[in-house]
């Protein structure tokens, strides 16, 4: 995920690279702030799911899924995360987390 966050930051930075340098700095800061708010949301969701009786593993799985949704809402679909086809990509086959 660290890699993914950095990739997202890099992608936005690249997109705006044609603009002035100060704009790049602003965009990177904006993305970093949004990533942090998704992480904050992860933390809040996890604590809430535990409080309503979910197991630590379920709370993690769901909070992490919502964290991804948050990143996608913020940045749009992230590279390598195509959801629009039912068939497996060569890299991934099935599967998450046995309880």
């Amino acid at each position, binding site marked *: *995920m*660290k890699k993914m966050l950095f990739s997202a930051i890099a992608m936005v930075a690249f997109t705006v690279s044609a603009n002035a340098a100060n704009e790049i700095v602003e965009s990177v800061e904006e993305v970093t702030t949004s*990533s*942090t708010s998704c*992480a*904050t949301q*992860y*933390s809040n*969701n*996890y604590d*809430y*799911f535990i409080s*309503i*009786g*979910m*197991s*630590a*593993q*379920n709370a*993690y*799985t*769901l*909070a*992490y*899924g*919502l*964290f*991804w*949704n948050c990143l996608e809402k913020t940045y749009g679909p992230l590279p*390598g*995360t*195509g*959801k*629009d*086809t*039912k*068939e*497996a*990509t060569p*890299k*991934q*086959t*099935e*599967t*998450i*987390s*046995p*309880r």
Partner: protein
Amino acid sequence: MKNIITILLFFISLVGLGQISGKVEYEIEIGDDPRFLLHEGLTEIMRSGQTLSNDLTFNLYFKENQSYFEINNSPINYLYYVNLFMAASTDPECSCYSDLKNQIFSCVIYNRFLDEEFILEDKNDFQWEITNEEKEIQNLKVFKAIGKTRNNERIEAWFTPEIPVNAGPENFMGLPGLILELQVLYTKYICKKIEFTNSYDSKIVKATGKEIINYKSFDEQIQKQHNFLMNQ
């Protein structure tokens, strides 16, 4: 108690008759989990998961001492069905080989955080308690058993001693007969078809070529990932 002894005797006698091989096809139903309804994001995931559940069926290939469970149309795009997998109270996304004699399962799991597959190999203790309740599924008499997952979630399983193989969906096993219906919290597997044939025996193979972890290291992985996210 008398009923349970009869079931066990029936099971033991059938095991002696020789090897039984075949395939069970299951559908999955995702019910309304009241905890999901308390959270807007989770409600959205659950509703999407319920819709996606109509798309997939699951196969359990079995023979006397081994079984293999997988999504019927696998390989599938995990991310396309991610809401189904998150909404389910079990792990329908896992392909699982089970050594029924030693009660050891070996499931291929995808760690989304690391974007990597692992083989989770371990044993479960479902603490099965067989009840006297019975009904029919696919014209076979099934009995109800109650158990618990390792997260202490209630399992309701309906097994048939008429197919004396102690397998079931995912890594659920250990009852004196094949599990034809299984419910964990609000997720239910329902048998829709049974075939008796040995033509699927070659599918019952343990995965190799990936790092093998057990529940302990799996939990440690999750804990590390959780700590990383909490420290952002």
